[in-house]
């Protein structure tokens, strides 16, 4: 099927490119944000920022 996408191949490929770009961007953003927050939290806890707050580590 993939070898012959017919006269509208460009539109089909553009659709899948849009999916890859939008979802790829979203996945990357979510993972990078998760990593950044994890590092920031670890740095704060290492400095003992939470000592007097009584909060548990995650």
């Amino acid at each position, binding site marked *: 099927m993939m070898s012959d996408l017919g006269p509208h*191949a460009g539109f089909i490929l553009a659709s899948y490119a849009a999916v890859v770009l939008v979802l790829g961007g979203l996945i990357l953003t979510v993972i990078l944000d998760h990593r950044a927050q994890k590092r920031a939290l670890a740095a704060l806890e290492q400095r003992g920022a939470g000592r007097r707050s009584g909060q548990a580590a995650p």
Partner: protein
Amino acid sequence: MYRGDMASLIDLANPTRFMRLSVVVLPWLTGMAVLLLAVGFYLAWFVAPADYQQGETIRIMFVHVPAAWLALMFYTVMSIAALGTLVWRHPLADVAQKAAAPIGACFALICLLTGAFWGKPMWGTYWVWDARLTSVLVLLLIYLGIIALWRALDEPSRAGRMVAILTLVGFVNVPIIKFSVDWWNTLHQPASVLRMGGPTIHPSMLWPLLILAVGFTCLALVLHLVAMRAEIMRRRVRTLTILEAERLDRLAAQGVPA
């Protein structure tokens, strides 16, 4: 998580417990997403036949339709979370709300883009201002408005309440989108899967569509859980930063070097 009974909801209300539980669930959900998307795309590309009317452009439907469902599903999830914020003051509700917005927005965007790329060869135009297309564009704009409001307000619990009100007001658009094809004479075809009397699609196309829909849903839930974890950590970082600043202030006032 979304449909648990009240007891399990209260169990999950503890962010620390949520962090622990999500670590266990995430690898399984990710594996399911990868497997279902792989099988779904294989069927969609290599097994499903070309449509007798749409030809090969039917391949666009396999991503367009799940994206549309997920854009609506995530808005519904956000609305339920908004109720959780306003009515039950559930500690995870506005975390869930905030994390869901960019994911729903991305699926609404994919729905509009793939719809346009299908519309050009099939309808002869990328865009028409008909009821279905316009109401989905409004959904994307509401998503963007919600994301902007989250960014405009610093204090998370206050932002959560204000966004919750906006989200619930915007929910009126969800049934409008769903029934727009029945209420108005639109260019967009009526529902062919979720309709009274059963689907009107041939099984060779229905199966890949359903498998991809569940696969994309798993992927979206994985992203939602990871984004919720990041949001919980962001709030802890915020609290700890404030506590640290207060501690340094106190030390400075006592004349002790920090």
